[in-house]
């Protein structure tokens, strides 16, 4: 799902020939960042992006309702796009698992994009490595089932946001490297030096071994407006990953 996120970060980008239908080549993406690093805002922007391109609905899973629309762009205020975003609020890990296990029982058009915000809150319920792997595998399996329902030409994407664990916690590092197995594409968000009244972030997208790594500078104004500019250099050191000992990086 690197492509959806790339379109959020590069407005006006058009898919290269063959890219649009390359579902297989657009693996599930893990959006990683510390607290208040704009993960929800980027997920919501991805939801709006997918809702605007004439495809099926977008399913947004989160533990609690968003307090306000995270970004006030024209797209965010477009009722036709907002109508296509369906929110579900599984209150516990058990309820999230039940939702994913029974996703094939739901009627209506299958979602074109499945989003989960705050995976760390569900993992916090004392999930062992295998249970965490089952949750990740069920997310992929649910997206694969939605893809099957949509048909062969276009699949259902999957983006999951996870608050990065504190460095030095070996249990969390194991969990992160385990999740990275299931999410080959990753986008790291790091807080950067803020400007006056702004919150600034560095977004580093690693699309999972296919395309080149790319970086952007994302700034949030006090009113929630998000501006994105390409990072001056295209080389990036994914330093937040150094906490995971075995590492998911080649």
């Amino acid at each position, binding site marked *: 799902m690197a492509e959806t996120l790339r379109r959020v970060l590069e407005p006006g980008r058009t898919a290269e020939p063959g890219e649009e239908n390359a579902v297989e080549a657009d693996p599930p993406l893990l959006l990683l960042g510390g607290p208040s690093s704009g993960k929800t805002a980027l997920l919501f922007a991805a939801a709006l992006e997918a809702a605007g391109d004439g495809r099926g609905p977008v399913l947004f899973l989160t533990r609690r309702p968003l307090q306000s629309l995270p970004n006030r762009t024209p797209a965010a205020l477009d009722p036709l796009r907002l109508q296509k975003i369906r929110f579900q609020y599984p209150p516990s890990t058990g309820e999230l698992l039940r939702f994913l296990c029974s996703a094939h029982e739901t009627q209506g058009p299958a979602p074109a994009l499945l989003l989960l915000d705050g995976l760390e809150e569900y993992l916090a319920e004392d999930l062992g490595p295998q249970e965490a792997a089952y949750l990740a595998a069920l997310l992929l399996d649910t997206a694969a089932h939605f893809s099957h329902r949509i048909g062969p030409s276009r699949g259902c994407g999957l983006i999951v946001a996870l608050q990065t664990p504190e460095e030095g916690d070996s249990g969390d590092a194991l969990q992160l490297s*385990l999740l990275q197995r299931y999410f080959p594409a990753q986008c790291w968000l790091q807080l950067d030096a803020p400007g006056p009244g702004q919150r600034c972030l560095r977004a580093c997208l690693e699309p999972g071994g296919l395309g080149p790594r790319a970086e952007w500078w994302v700034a949030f104004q006090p009113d929630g407006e998000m501006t994105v500019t390409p990072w001056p250099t295209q080389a990036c050191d994914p330093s937040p990953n150094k906490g995971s000992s075995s590492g998911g990086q080649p």
Partner: protein
Amino acid sequence: MAVALAAVTLPSVVEELLSEMAAAVREGARIPDEHLLSLKFIFGSSAIQALDLVDRQSITLISSPSGRQVYQVLGSSGKTYICLTSCHYCSCPAFAFSVLRKSDSLLCKHLLAVYLSQVMSTCRQLSVSDNQLTEILLMEKKQEA
């Protein structure tokens, strides 16, 4: 093999081997010994154990009218395990330890048996209702807990 391997796709060498084995089966030929040796080379003792599971028809493909599918493998100990093939997941302890934790195996014998049974078209088929499939997937969670 210290680097965590992606759980979404099989390495291309395995994909190639499986598709060559599938081609041999389609033509009605025996699977050539060299393919079986390659399998042993890549997967070690799991290859023999997986072939044994296939011979015993221990793999069941469970599907519901929705089109969702899950594999159930009856292990040599008599326990059944759930395998998802949309990504690599098996509920057995070897998968948790050797594949997820240590990253020193590509697949457990149950997942390999699922792929081999697909190649050899020897899966047993079981149709259940959508609701029953939900319960099978949820049961997995309850067993772990």
